[in-house]
């Protein structure tokens, strides 16, 4: 295969991939009183939680390997995302089943940051951003700028 990736190539290419998972959550913090929780989080504070079909979109950048034409092999990427995110999150309660959300509120903002933290270790390409659709009307993006999940170290 000819190496067509030229030095000084004027184009920057990113690979995007979407995944789906379903999970429940409850927005509630021990730092607020019951009334305040109710006022701040509204129906998302329902004691028994509720769920969403989340869509996760990730964007990776890197050189296109001339031998494969790929920034990252999809099989490597899919198995990494499955292990780090889909298996621990899909059909789970984010509050109960994902350790980090025992201390912080599992809003989709925080979910984005947590997913970014997990996926940035992907060894074969650079994670550019994580976008999560909580519903088709609400989506959140995080690209790892300055960070912080309340009470946690920098991601």
């Amino acid at each position, binding site marked *: *295969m000819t190496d067509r990736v030229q030095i000084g190539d004027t184009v920057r290419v*990113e690979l*995007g*991939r979407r995944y789906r998972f379903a999970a429940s959550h409850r927005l509630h913090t021990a730092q607020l009183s019951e009334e305040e929780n109710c006022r701040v989080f509204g129906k998302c504070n329902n004691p028994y939680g509720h769920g969403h079909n989340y869509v996760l979109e990730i*964007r990776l950048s890197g050189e296109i390997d001339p031998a*494969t034409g790929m920034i990252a092999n999809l099989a490597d990427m899919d198995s990494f995302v499955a292990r780090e995110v889909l298996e621990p999150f899909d059909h789970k309660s984010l509050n109960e089943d994902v350790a980090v959300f025992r201390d912080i509120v599992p809003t989709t903002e925080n979910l984005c940051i947590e997913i970014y933290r997990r996926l940035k270790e992907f060894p074969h390409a650079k994670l*550019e951003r994580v976008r999560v659709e909580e519903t088709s009307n609400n989506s959140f993006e995080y690209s790892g700028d300055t960070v912080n999940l309340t009470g946690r170290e920098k991601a």
Partner: protein
Amino acid sequence: MVLLTRKIEFSASHRYHNPAFSSEENRRVFGKCNNPHGHGHNYTLEVTVAGEPDPVTGMVLDLKELKEILEREVMQRMDHRHLNFEVPELAGQIPTCENIARVIWNLLDPKIKQGRLHRVRLYESADLFADCYRNGAGGAGP
């Protein structure tokens, strides 16, 4: 600055195969995309042009012109074609989403005279796409 996006769809077949690899290596690296007789996709292409609206026409560029450029440069080259054999610009490359998107960027960039090509996004399926940006042009944008 305003971003203008036009979407087109084309259908094409391809196969992932590197003649420098053994048969087993090809199957291991490319999986079912290495099927000897190829397979195909409905590709969706979104082309985004950035610019200031012309004070007289109110347009970043004339959509009719963009439509013609996309017809000539992309549709006629790639629609209902086999990307491995019928698109000279892809010769010697594996026709992955990344490589096809980059070829499309390189075809379109010199043809867009009003405004400036900002992003090429090529969907191979609803769950897999590649984005191209001008190198060094700041963040990834929307």
